[in-house]
């Protein structure tokens, strides 16, 4: 790849992220060095509803966006006039939430005379791997698993992605949230199940590991989720209590088997040498361990971001945006939120002529 605009090592990019319930801003230098990573989490506002309420999330973003952006600049000890580009998440995500970040970033860029580039949130998650794994270069395969997404992606090059598998129904994180709610652990389900499962027996209950017929790599979690709910129902009908830790451990074990099994099958079929994970579910300790073990067996180099870069953050958007910027991509003043943006697709982001 070529860096035609500026000496790559000095490039300063301000990242802005507001696709769900975190208002975040970050300054990234030289594509991978995180100078600041400010996250304002609204999780307490949403917990009582058992999930993210879009309107409450959007209201939270507009109240905090200026403070978050200013903190990111302050912590990085830079001012706006030092910034070479502003990278902003424009999809996928909640449309009202995305629009706050997009409108803010565009006006910031317009007023300060800084180019803006729209970034795909999922590609951001994948690029989080570049932060902690400084020698990582494409090509590699990446499992993206979060509350809204489950994808197996082949990262062919910077800015070039091929989807190998997706979920047919629930996202992995969604299944964690639903099961956590059903066994009384509450929201957010991922970290709560992760913790509870450590005290349980993963072989206590046998839950199904579903395969999808048409595409052997695709994921399906709804059957697993239903099996857990049926098990709980059956216990209730019989007037028996169930062991929360055992259910959590057995469910998690099945979910991880699906994620790891499909990942390793695809990696083997394609002769992958490097494998990475990304997204909120990638901070699950059992999943990280399982993938690490399986990759080691197959002599595949395994990479993972620090947990702080797995959950939603703007550093990953700054990193992804830095590479998009270096490839010549820019967005104009009409950049819009694209709530269903696909991996590897660009809408309102094009090469500067």
């Amino acid at each position, binding site marked *: 790849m070529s860096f035609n605009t500026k000496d790559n090592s000095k490039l300063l990019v301000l990242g802005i992220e507001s696709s769900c319930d975190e208002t975040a801003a970050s300054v990234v230098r030289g594509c991978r060095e995180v100078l600041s990573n400010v996250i304002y989490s609204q999780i307490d506002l949403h917990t*009582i*509803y*058992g*999930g*993210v*309420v*879009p*309107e*409450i999330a*959007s*209201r939270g*973003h*507009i*109240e905090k*966006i*200026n*403070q978050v*952006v*200013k903190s990111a600049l302050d912590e990085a000890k830079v001012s*706006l006039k030092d910034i070479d580009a502003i990278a902003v998440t424009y999809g996928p995500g909640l*449309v*009202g939430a995305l*629009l*706050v*970040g*997009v*409108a*803010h*970033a*565009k*006006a*910031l860029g*317009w*007023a*300060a005379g800084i180019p803006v580039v729209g970034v795909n949130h999922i590609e951001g998650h994948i690029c989080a791997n570049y932060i902690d794994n400084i020698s990582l270069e494409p090509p590699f395969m990446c499992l993206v698993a979060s509350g809204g997404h489950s994808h197996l992606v082949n990262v062919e090059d910077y800015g070039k992605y091929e989807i190998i598998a997706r979920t047919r129904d629930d996202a992995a994180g969604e299944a964690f949230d639903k099961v956590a709610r059903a066994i009384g652990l509450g929201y957010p389900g991922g970290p709560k199940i992760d913790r509870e499962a450590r005290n349980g027996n993963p072989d206590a209950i046998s839950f199904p590991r579903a395969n999808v017929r048409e595409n052997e790599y695709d994921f399906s979690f709804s059957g697993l989720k239903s099996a857990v709910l049926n098990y709980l129902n059956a216990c209730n009908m019989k007037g028996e209590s169930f062991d929360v830790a055992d259910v959590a451990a057995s469910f998690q074990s099945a979910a991880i088997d699906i994620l790891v099994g499909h990942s390793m099958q695809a990696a083997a079929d394609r002769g992958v040498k490097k494998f990475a994970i990304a997204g909120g579910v990638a901070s699950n300790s059992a999943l990280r361990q399982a993938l690490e073990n399986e990759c080691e067996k197959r002599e595949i180099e395994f990479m993972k971001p620090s947990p702080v870069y797995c959950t939603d953050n703007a550093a990953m958007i700054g990193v992804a945006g830095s590479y998009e910027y270096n490839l010549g991509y820019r967005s104009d*003043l*009409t*950049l*819009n*939120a694209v709530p269903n943006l696909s991996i590897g697709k660009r809408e309102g982001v094009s090469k500067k002529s």
Partner: protein
Amino acid sequence: MKILAIDSSGLVASAAIWEGELPANEGRILAVSSTDYKKTHSQTLLPMIDHLCRDTDCKADDFDAVAVSVGPGSFTGLRIGSATAKAIALVSDIPVIEVPTLMGLAYNFWGSDRLVCPLMDARRNQVYTGLYAFENGDMVTVKDQTATGLDEILDAVRKECEKKCKGVIFLGDGADAYREEIKKLADFDHVFAPPHLNRQDASGVAVIAAGMYREGKTVSADDHKPVYLRTSQAEREGAKNFDLRSVNS
């Protein structure tokens, strides 16, 4: 001094640049633009501001304040205007002036000897509305902006008409949506606004804002947020009754 004014509270995207000197009250509108088209404010508002600035050789740091029609209105529309205003004000280190949306809309009929009743369709059988009058060239708020039923605001107008007023002007997208109903229910002298005065217009927002700026009625860009006059569906229904699937699916 210069003020950039924005109104994205409804279907119209509108922006204007006011220029004048303090304390003189005379100022002028350097440029104004409004678009009532199906594109989202996210696609129209900032290009419009850019266009106005190019036409008048203005830069972001020429502005002394950003005025924004603060709400009520479309939640998303309000936030696009607010996010734009907050970012411009952040860069230029200037304050934000929060102009009540219904006041801005009523200002279209500055000087009228009729009562002015702006109506915005708020869905769920409600309108965002208020009542305004002009006395010796000054705008007087007869009833502050609120979310209410059409019957309630018509009752309020009727009471005012019984007291003294010379009839009422209805305007706004709510006046269009409820025109037949108003015609049926309004047993007092009333007229409807013609199209060129019937929608949000940032030039009126700018003039009101200049007056507010003079009085020191500004807020910091960081603190500025829209006025919704309504809680979210989740908050209205409460955590026990609210079903997330109703909004996420």
